[in-house]
């Protein structure tokens, strides 16, 4: 059933279009997408047993910890089907979070089919739907698979009916599997061969290769993951990125296997593989862009390209101001591998030099932060994330506001607008009341509500993006006992009553704590922030007023009483070691503080302000 690697080339060189299947796996989070991918790889023996680890395709440590896929990856599996023919199965693993919807759409555009994994007890969820629609929009054949049938709570028949009713695709004959326990994996492979359409394309046409991901490698430069739609690409060929205009000479082409890259003579239409061309940064290989030949170029790029657009911005500063250069270098390196993040120098009076970083969403932001802290050993202070506001000044000039630092004086503002999103929420019907209450608190505008089945409801809202990015998902989870799921999509800008809230410590504005918000929310939020800061800023030798102000008008205030007593009354022979440790700890705590004027603020205080829990 399997072939040794030596024959891999043979199979490939001769792979006819009819022997290729390109597919993705899509699912709601935790429904078992990555586990199924692993089983498929194993079944095809593509993974060397010695290096086998759980969830092979999720390669980042963080991905494993969080159990989600952040970057798309791909692998070519060689499978000899029951019909005796050997097929090349290209599995493209897609990111699994709403922050990465565009990346998902490009990965799907590289495929002809998608396996839709649905949890046999959870059934259809918000992202099941969202991802299915993405796949259908991309013209893919969607093939449901019912996973986790070994769970006692599994209800495969009902879930199949759900898939048919809600999504409207046949599921009667869908394989019932357990990816975790390797049950029925073979039937999934047979289904892929049978039901995923073979790719089409002309290998002699001008080259059109879709970039669906890229990865930076310090030896080869950027490794571009691509699906050849038309034509052929070979080493030595001059290529051009149609959106960025950058040109390169191809160094190597080949296929991805879970254990590494396998070079080949050429990649032709219908195939999935990689290209290297001494490309220095992934910014030159934008996801969704089309690669063509410099000679005999394609007349049109492939449809669907969209430049990456960060949606959430936040100030990232080194906790220790002296580490600014280290942070810059770390961001440069991360950026090599993540074109969707942006960063720009920013300087705050309070925090000194740092960067305004743009992210696809809060998860993306957390991931970048964690990677900076872990992989580059940095201690960071992150300011409250904000969306991009659009302000039309009285002068008629329109500006995009990426940071509260740039927010114009209220006198100069003619119109302020904020981005809105369409939000789909799915939850058991008993939580509808809770969800509605939550959405109302978050300025959601109710659109409609659909019963998915006797028990579950899908609600549609339009809501300011700003209300979603903070802690909306957490709030939703807690109000639905974890059953609620969420998906959102940007729909444009709408006028809004916005204000900039400033925080003053001991009378001085700490610019890094300023943020923009909806005017009606200003009072409760200001009070909450002052309280949080009071809890998190240690007492100093003098009283510290904490104030929140809008345009110079104080709207909330707390006071940190002066420190009167911080002393070890007794310190004799037996106490010295212990008390020394105590003072060392106190000293280390101080090192992590930032001083604003005369007030020391620990980085935890910034974090606390970020996590204002509404309850």
């Amino acid at each position: 059933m399997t072939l040794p690697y030596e024959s891999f080339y043979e199979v490939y060189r001769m792979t006819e279009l009819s022997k290729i299947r390109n597919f993705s796996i899509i699912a709601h989070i935790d429904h078992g997408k990555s586990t199924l991918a692993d089983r498929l790889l194993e079944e095809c023996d593509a993974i060397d047993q010695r290096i086998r680890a759980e969830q092979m395709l999720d390669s980042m440590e963080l991905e494993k910890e969080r159990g989600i896929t952040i970057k798309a990856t791909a692998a070519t599996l060689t499978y000899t089907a029951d019909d005796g023919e050997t097929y090349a199965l290209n599995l493209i693993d897609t990111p699994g979070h709403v922050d990465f919807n565009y990346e998902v759409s490009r990965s799907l555009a590289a495929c002809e089919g998608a396996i839709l994994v649905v949890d046999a007890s959870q059934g259809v969820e918000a992202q099941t739907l969202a991802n299915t629609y993405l796949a259908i929009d991309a013209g893919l054949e969607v093939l449901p698979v019912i996973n986790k049938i070994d769970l006692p709570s599994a209800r495969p028949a009902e879930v199949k009916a759900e898939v048919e009713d809600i999504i409207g695709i046949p599921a009667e004959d869908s394989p019932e599997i357990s990816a975790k326990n390797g049950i029925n994996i073979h039937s999934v492979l047979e289904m892929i061969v049978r039901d995923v359409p073979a790719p089409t394309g002309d290998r002699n046409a001008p080259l059109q290769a879709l970039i669906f991901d890229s990865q930076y490698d310090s030896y080869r430069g950027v490794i571009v993951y691509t699906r050849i739609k038309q034509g052929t690409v070979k080493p030595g060929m001059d290529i051009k990125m149609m959106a960025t205009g950058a040109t390169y000479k191809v160094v190597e082409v080949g296929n991805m296997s879970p254990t590494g890259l396998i070079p080949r003579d050429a990649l032709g239409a219908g195939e999935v593989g990689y290209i290297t061309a001494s490309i220095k940064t992934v910014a030159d290989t934008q996801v969704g862009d089309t690669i063509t030949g410099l000679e005999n170029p394609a007349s049109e790029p492939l449809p669907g390209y969209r430049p990456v657009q960060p949606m959430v911005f936040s100030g990232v500063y080194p906790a220790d101001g002296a580490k600014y250069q280290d942070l810059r270098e770390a961001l440069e390196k991360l950026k090599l591998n993540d074109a969707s993040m942006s960063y720009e120098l920013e300087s705050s009076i309070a925090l000194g030099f740092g960067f305004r970083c743009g992210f696809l969403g809060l998860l993306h932001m957390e991931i970048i932060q964690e990677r900076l802290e872990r992989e580059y050993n940095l201690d960071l202070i992150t300011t409250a994330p904000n969306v991009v506001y659009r302000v039309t000044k009285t002068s008629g000039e329109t500006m995009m506001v990426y940071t509260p630092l740039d927010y114009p004086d209220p006198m100069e503002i003619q119109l302020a607008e904020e981005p809105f999103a369409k939000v789909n929420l799915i939850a058991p019907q008993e939580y509808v009341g809770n969800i509605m209450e939550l959405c109302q608190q978050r300025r959601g505008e109710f659109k409609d509500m659909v019963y998915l089945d006797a028990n579950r409801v899908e609600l549609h809202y339009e809501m300011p993006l700003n209300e979603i990015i903070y802690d909306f998902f957490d709030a939703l989870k807690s109000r639905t006992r974890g059953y609620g799921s969420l998906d959102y999509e940007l729909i444009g800008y709408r006028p809004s009553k916005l204000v900039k809230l400033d925080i003053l410590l001991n009378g001085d504005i700490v610019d890094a704590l300023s943020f923009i918000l909806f005017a009606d929310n200003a009072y409760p939020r200001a009070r909450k922030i002052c309280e949080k800061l009071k809890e998190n800023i240690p007492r100093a030798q003098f009283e510290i007023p904490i104030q929140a102000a809008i345009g110079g008008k104080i709207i909330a205030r707390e006071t940190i009483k002066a420190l009167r007593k911080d002393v070890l009354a007794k310190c004799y022979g037996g106490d010295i070691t212990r008390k020394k440790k105590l003072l060392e700890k106190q000293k280390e705590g101080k090192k992590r503080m930032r001083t604003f004027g005369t007030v020391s603020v620990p980085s935890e205080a910034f974090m606390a302000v970020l996590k204002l829990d509404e309850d």
Partner: protein
Amino acid sequence: MPILTKRLNKTSLGLYIHVPFCRSKCQYCDFYSLACKDDKLMDGYLDAVCAHIKEAGALAPGYKVDTIYFGGGTPSFFGADGLAIILTTIRRNFDVDNNAEITFECNPDSVSDKLLHRLRAEGFNRVSLGIQTDDDEILKKLGRPHTYAQAVTAYQRIRKAGFRNVSVDLMYGLPGQTLRTWQETLDNVLKLLPEHISCYGLKVEEGTPLWDYKEAANLPDDDLQADMYLAAVELLRSRGYRQYEISNFCRKGQYSRHNMKYWTGGEYLGFGPSASSDFAGKRFTLTRDIQTYIQGIRDGGEVMEDVQEIPLRERAGEYLMLRLRTQQGIAADEYERLFLLPFQPLVKVLANHRSLGYVGVNDQGRWYLTPKGYLISNTIISDLLMAQDESEPIRRLF
């Protein structure tokens, strides 16, 4: 190597004997002590301490013992005979200075005339009496087995027995205490005219019975404790007591010479379970378990719990942490000579705190904390430690 008190001839040494027996455990106490009168255990302890002293004496021929301190626990509860035997053993195995300060701690419920006369005769010359408060209700709440009247009687007996150097321990920040009752306590106790007074703010330590009901104990808050402290400093000063350390006050220069060693980098050896030593560049602590201690000494087993060689750089931190507890404070020349580190970075911090009234500096250039500064000494010391971390060693010697 002794850091500060190197003498031309012999190096001075303090001895601390931990006597871990009490009539009962106080609610706030986290010292190692057993509330029992088990003769066999006490005998085993006595043998072990004496054997330990013999062992250690042989290792310290270059030292002259000029302070001996029996702490606890309640040494008076252990009895005069035992204390006398230990002191005799010390005299036989160490070179004890004729003018050595020899202190024992006692509680009002365990001092008889007989015990006091005996110990005076043995050469004990300083007594530390635990009074804590004059409020019998609080004493009861704290689990102390005596009344204030008993404390006064004990004090008079101590005087009658001929002790001319007596210290009393008092506590503030006690359950239900107010600023006024605390000041009254001080007034009452001052009538006794002790040479030395220690005033300790109550600290609720984890693992003590008080910890478990601290929320319900009606304890004065930090601000009130601070007021109590400043009131005590002021009152004692006005009555002729010099504050020579954060919690210690004395008349006529009668400070505790033994305790002063802890704060000035002197060397000391500890005996008995949980006792600590700073000797020959190492700091070590004995096991907190009396059986382990007894058996370890008898069979040559392990009795140390923690042995640390303290590098010079760390000593420099200790210098700040400990010296600033005392009225002597710290000085540039002394600091630079001892640790080869620049003092300048510290001056910045000190000057800053000085401008706010927490730090003073005298004509000799010694920096010290004011009473207000003592109250937030952790804050000031950690600021100094931070400045110290950033300073490079003075290179002229290398």
